[in-house]
């Protein structure tokens, strides 16, 4: 800004000049680093799309709706419907399980917990987010899956499938325990801290005056939260849920361990199926470079990127007011 200022002395402008060269270089470095981030996103989309082209050319729109996935050479046939549906269903299922618990934790941390308890409990929940995905996978495979198998499928399977109207959802066709239910349960635990932390942060931003006014009118804590806090923060709450959904869609290792990895449409919550991320993790390292299978996997990756980009962008848009504050 002050570059063009002229000074009577001969020495000063030269020193300014040296400084401004440094300024130009530094600003240029920062700006190009920013440009690199944009380039990165563009490059990811373009690279995945180019890799996916052979599969899109071969199968066209049928790729989205076909359930056939046959990598055997000579009769290769690839359709992503099972993986796409598995991804969406497991993520939505996980959200349904995670949101009430996350809300409970956020409510507890902002309104109910005594101040000395808030930090340790909040930190413990946040640490849950730091545990690597593969650990959730192992824990899921060796703890959650046997639990579902023994204590739910074998113990209650018949009773559950006898429930009128919705009984078919609990039909057990395999008793391995690896199922979309196990996947959704593990994913829901993984996204829990993200949703809970966002909700807690936005609940904390409600002006104290609003809450005090409601309490002053004789409202109970639940009435304050349901009639003052949630209406005030609902957009950010939805943003937090979308953030969790975005993470759930792309969850890879944990899901690979527990979902069963079968290219079968799900009919019940105990069915094994697959997701885009887990089919990529399972098959890509072993597929032949440049094969149609690899292209089909890249096509699935491209679709996953588009879906999660839309979800994460929506989340970011809904949370923007919180980010500004």
């Amino acid at each position: 800004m002050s570059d063009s200022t002229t000074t009577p002395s001969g020495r000063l402008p030269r020193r300014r000049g040296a400084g401004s060269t440094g300024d130009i270089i530094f600003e240029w470095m920062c700006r190009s680093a920013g440009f690199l981030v944009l380039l990165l996103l563009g490059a990811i989309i373009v690279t995945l799309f180019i890799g996916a082209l052979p599969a899109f050319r071969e199968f066209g729109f049928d790729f989205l709706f076909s359930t056939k996935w046959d990598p055997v050479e000579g009769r290769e046939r690839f359709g992503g419907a099972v993986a796409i549906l598995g991804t969406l269903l497991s993520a939505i299922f996980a959200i349904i399980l995670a949101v009430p618990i996350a809300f409970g934790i956020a409510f507890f941390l902002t309104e109910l917990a005594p101040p000395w308890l808030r930090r340790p409990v909040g930190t413990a929940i946040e640490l849950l987010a730091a545990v690597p995905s593969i650990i959730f996978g192992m824990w899921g495979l060796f703890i959650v899956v046997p639990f579902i198998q023994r204590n739910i499928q074998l113990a209650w399977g018949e009773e559950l499938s006898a429930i009128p109207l919705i009984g078919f959802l609990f039909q057990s066709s395999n008793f391995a325990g690896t199922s979309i239910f196990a996947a959704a349960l593990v994913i829901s635990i993984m996204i829990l801290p993200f949703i809970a932390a966002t909700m807690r942060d936005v609940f904390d931003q409600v002006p104290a005056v609003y809450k005090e006014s409601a309490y002053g009118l004789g409202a109970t804590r639940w009435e304050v939260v349901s009639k003052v806090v949630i209406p005030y923060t609902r957009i950010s709450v939805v943003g937090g849920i979308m953030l969790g959904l975005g993470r759930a869609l792309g969850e890879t290792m944990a899901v690979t361990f527990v979902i069963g990895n079968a290219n079968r449409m799900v009919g019940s919550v105990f069915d094994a199926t697959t997701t885009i991320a887990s089919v990529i993790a399972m098959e890509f390292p072993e597929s032949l470079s440049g094969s149609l299978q690899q292209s089909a996997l890249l096509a699935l990756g491209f679709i996953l990127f588009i879906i999660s980009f839309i979800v994460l962008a929506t989340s970011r848009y809904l949370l923007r007011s919180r980010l500004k504050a």
Partner: protein
Amino acid sequence: MSATTASRAFQPKDVAASRALGRRRRLVDQLVRVFCIIATIIGLFFLSSIMVTLVWRGIATLDWVTLSREFQPTAYGDPDAPRGGLLHAILGTLVQSGMGIVIGTPIGILVGTYLSEYARGSRFGDAVRFVSDVLLSAPSVLVGLFVYQILVQPVGGFSGIAGAVALSILVIPVVVRTTEDMLQLIPNTLREAVVALGAPKWKMVTLVCYRAALSGMVTGVLLAFARIAGETAPLLLTSFGNNVISWNLFGAMGSLPISIYQQANSGFPDLIQVAWTGALLITLGVLAINIAARILVARRK
């Protein structure tokens, strides 16, 4: 209006009704309160279940043998066969994550600096911030696919360097977020004081702002390291894994998460045992780094 409510409130029938209403309101409040406490206990239960499982199953082989040996095939049915270790995986993780940090951190700091010091309110800055935030939560397996397409496929083989590049892409958004946040906490008066002394802007940023925000920025780098040390999916597609110690960055390289993944799925009890120890190691490491980062931030406040 107040007159009607007052007169109504004094009718005995309404007293009973409002008592019932009061009871219901209190009951609902109590139920919700109990539900929230249960929800919190469930959240804490899962964390402790994971930790207890890891310690319970992993501690048995957490010894010098595991830390000093490379992978050995299963000793199943052969009690004299040597037990395998995780040294190759630990070294591979340190090398690849270290390189990922070395590549990603400078870029992340520059982007964060740009967003905080140069791009306030600009369209381009908003776009960069938006994209960085999306990349922060984008599926890491897709980053692996991307790096496979640009660094593995053209070269014709998996490589440690490809793994490091994939991890560095995951580092950038974490560092961008913390750098920008920390720089924004610095009061403008400090910046004005530096500029008023005649220092150029780049000196103001590098010598004063960075120093003031140092602990926060270090926290960001620590958190980024903790995140990539446990990443599996991107490495599966880029450095693939290796069962022996390898210092060759242009060949396949082992890493702790991949060793865990392969040995946990092997079906052999002794290999699964080693996987549990690996899982315990990585979780303790990651949580220790996270707690250290938190302490660093807390001390600053």
